[in-house]
């Protein structure tokens, strides 16, 4: 047995075979994702059963059996009819503008366009002139929107102007006195105060100027217009207030801290409904006779205060995440408290809590629907109001209206949450290692 013969020695590599059919393509995916174990297979079957139970009737109702055209309820009370889209079609303008006069609706459209013109460049990171855009959104747009929507021409009495002038003079005097006492050069603080009052006077002059627009009372506003007005004003007003409250809560001054804590915990502990009730029933009692707030404005105040407490907690979360070294570094650079907050702390803190801020905004946007309980007709309010229209009463009308309103709300909220995820990823990039 000297020679052991090796029968076969492979000299080249075996040809690579394609993976078995059961591991690739649709079949492989299904096997791996849906039927990889007995338990999973059972779950899949259950899931398919659930979908089979829900989807076909829903799709039938929404699209196949739905009534798309028609001029009154006749079209929708047919046996076996699905969603009554003809109702939404007929009432669409009302759902958007409420009872805003038809001839003046271009003003709402224009306001919307102005808003989009500001929001789009502000939201897309690559577009330059961010500072100018934000200035436009926070100063120019609100004034323009106010004038367009209400008609401007606010009747400000002579007493108001005198009062403003007296207040300005008093403030200047106090500042001058403090400067003299403290031995500071008075020129620059005085310019700041004077500039502030001049700007204020300019704003009041503009909104009291008669542009020849017809005045439209807020009672006539409704639909998506009111939803957006309440949401945007609430968001814009609650943001600075929330930042101040968050700073107050972390302040070393005991009185400021106590006031902030009480304020925040109070608004967070009560439901928005009671806040709205309070602002609609109690607020008039707190004002002197003759001073009467508009119902929409009262709701706005309630919503803004409520949202600011939530915003404060979100911002506080961000502030807590900033290490102490950042504060000390700002101090070491010789920055004043507000400079340090504005230039060092807040940019970092706010970046950390963008998801929380957007979540608060989404919550606020959804909560605007509550104003219908105090008799304002936002999108949901005007949709439910139209159910009582005998011309369109049918078994499917309420469901159709709600599905439409839900879809509109969903688009806005879902869009905001996607945008926040996008921004979060983008801002996070610098820290990814």
């Amino acid at each position, binding site marked *: 047995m000297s020679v052991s013969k090796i029968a076969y020695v492979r000299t080249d590599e075996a040809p690579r075979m394609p993976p078995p059919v059961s591991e690739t393509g649709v079949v492989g995916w299904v096997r791996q*994702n*849906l039927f*990889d174990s007995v338990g*999973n297979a059972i*779950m*899949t079957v259950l*899931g*398919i059963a*659930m*979908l089979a139970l829900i989807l076909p009737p829903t799709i039938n109702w929404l699209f196949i059996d739905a009534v798309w055209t028609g001029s009154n309820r006749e079209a929708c009370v047919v046996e076996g009819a699905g969603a009554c889209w003809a109702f939404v079609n007929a009432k669409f303008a009302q759902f958007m503008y409420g009872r805003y006069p038809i001839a003046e609706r271009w003003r709402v459209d224009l306001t919307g366009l102005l808003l989009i013109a500001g929001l789009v460049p502000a939201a897309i990171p690559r577009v330059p002139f961010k500072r100018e855009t934000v200035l436009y959104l926070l100063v120019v747009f609100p004034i323009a929107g106010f004038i367009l929507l209400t008609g401007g021409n606010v009747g400000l009495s002579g007493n108001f102007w005198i009062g403003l002038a007296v207040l300005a003079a008093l403030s200047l005097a106090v500042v001058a006195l*403090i400067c003299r*006492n*403290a*031995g*500071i050069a008075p020129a620059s603080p005085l310019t700041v105060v004077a500039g502030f009052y001049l700007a204020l006077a300019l704003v009041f002059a503009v909104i009291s100027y008669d542009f020849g627009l017809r005045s439209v009372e807020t009672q006539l506003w409704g639909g998506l217009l009111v939803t957006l007005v309440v949401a945007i004003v609430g968001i814009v007003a609650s943001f600075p207030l929330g930042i101040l409250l968050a700073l107050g809560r972390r302040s*070393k*001054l*005991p*009185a*400021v801290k106590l*006031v902030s804590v009480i304020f925040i915990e*109070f608004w*967070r*502990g*009560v*439901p*928005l*409904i*009671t806040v709205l*009730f*309070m602002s609609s*029933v*109690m607020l*008039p*009692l*707190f*004002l*002197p*006779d003759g001073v009467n707030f508009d119902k929409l404005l009262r709701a706005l105040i309630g919503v803004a205060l409520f949202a600011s407490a939530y915003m404060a907690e979100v911002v506080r979360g961000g502030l807590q995440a900033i290490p102490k070294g950042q504060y000390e570094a700002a101090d070491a650079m010789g920055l004043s408290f507000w400079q340090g907050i504005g230039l060092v702390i807040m940019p970092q803190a706010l970046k950390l809590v963008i998801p929380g801020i957007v979540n608060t905004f*989404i919550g606020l946007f*959804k*909560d*605007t*629907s*509550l104003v*219908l*309980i105090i008799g304002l007709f936002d999108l*949901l309010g005007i949709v*439910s109001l139209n*159910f009582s229209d005998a011309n369109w009463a049918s078994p499917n009308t*309420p*469901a159709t209206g*709600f599905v439409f*309103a*839900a879809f509109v*709300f*969903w688009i806005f*909220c*879902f869009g905001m*949450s996607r945008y926040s995820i996008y921004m979060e990823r983008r801002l996070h990039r610098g820290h990814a290692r």
Partner: protein
Amino acid sequence: MTPASSAEREQAGGGSGASWFYNPRVRGIVFQVLVVAFLLGMLAYFAQNAKINLERAGIASGLGFLSERAGFDVSQSLIQYSNDSTYFRAFLVGLFNTLLVAVIGIVIATVLGFIVGIARLSKNFLIRQIATWYVEMLRNIPLLLQLLFWYKAVLSVLPSPRQSLEPISGVYLNNRGLILPEVIGQPGSSAILWALLAAIAASIGISRWARKRQQATGQQFPSVFVGLGLIIGLPLLVFLVTGMPVDLAYAELAGFNFRGGVVIIPEFMALLLGLALYTAAFIAEIVRAGILAVSHGQTEAAYSLGLRPRRTLQLVIIPQAMRVIIPPLTSQFLNLTKNSSLAVAIGYPDLVAVFAGTVLNQTGQAVEVIIITMLVYLTLSLLTSGFMNWYNSRMALVER
């Protein structure tokens, strides 16, 4: 500069050249005095206006109205109530209705939320997608809209009592609500309740003893199964031994409506459904985030110690995930309780609808009524968060 000299400087109000204006202490005090004075001034101004306005409108103030006759009916009441009862009794009715829907809603939302949250992490594509869509749909639509949808578009278009749906024999569903048979206990039936209580007490005792023994000796005891067996088995045994002393009184159709039985009003069902489904979507996200927060290394470490997947889940992942889950879960419970005030929109007689709605309109005492309502919610919030903080501190990581 030595500490002493800086203290001297502060006391002197900035003697060494710097103005008092730049002294943080002085600035702090001045600022606080201004804030407090401003707030007190505003409060005084409001109070003065309110006093004048109330006097002019001829509205009484004080809490005397609570003992007056209410004179209105309430559609659901857990305690004895008629329109001859006082406003205070009406307040209690509203409060209990709020608590009822909040407690049941919290239980359902938690169970559903955990199921959906775990389903979102499922390896099964279909289940994961269904759970994701559930969450994305429900949490991006206002709760009020969902409530109105369930109430006006689903429950109101159910058939009339004569054409009631009967999903289970003796249970009827129609536009007046869900009608269940009433459970009537014969003499001796209280023994079943006592048996249930005894079984619960016994299973708590057993689990404590089992934990102690495991810590002392390492021996395990299936306390969960024994406890479940006791809680189900003992009352059942008593039920059979005492000769089944419980009757079901079925509701009967009489004229246009049902007579007898327990009626669950559609407002309650709509509110419960809306609150539970909506909050479950949020809880699902919390649960998902909590489970994802436990790093994969923990699972691997548990496997390398030889723990089976089920024990890993039970002993390693869930305890750590719960730590992350509990704090936000608390705020969801609070949200659900506060959101139950939306009942006013669909006419469920909760605290806001009964007290801040009807009572306020009848008495006109807006200030007192709104303050009491807000105080109740504040108290509920503080109690819930207090309890959850206590629970959280028990669960929290104990560090050296």
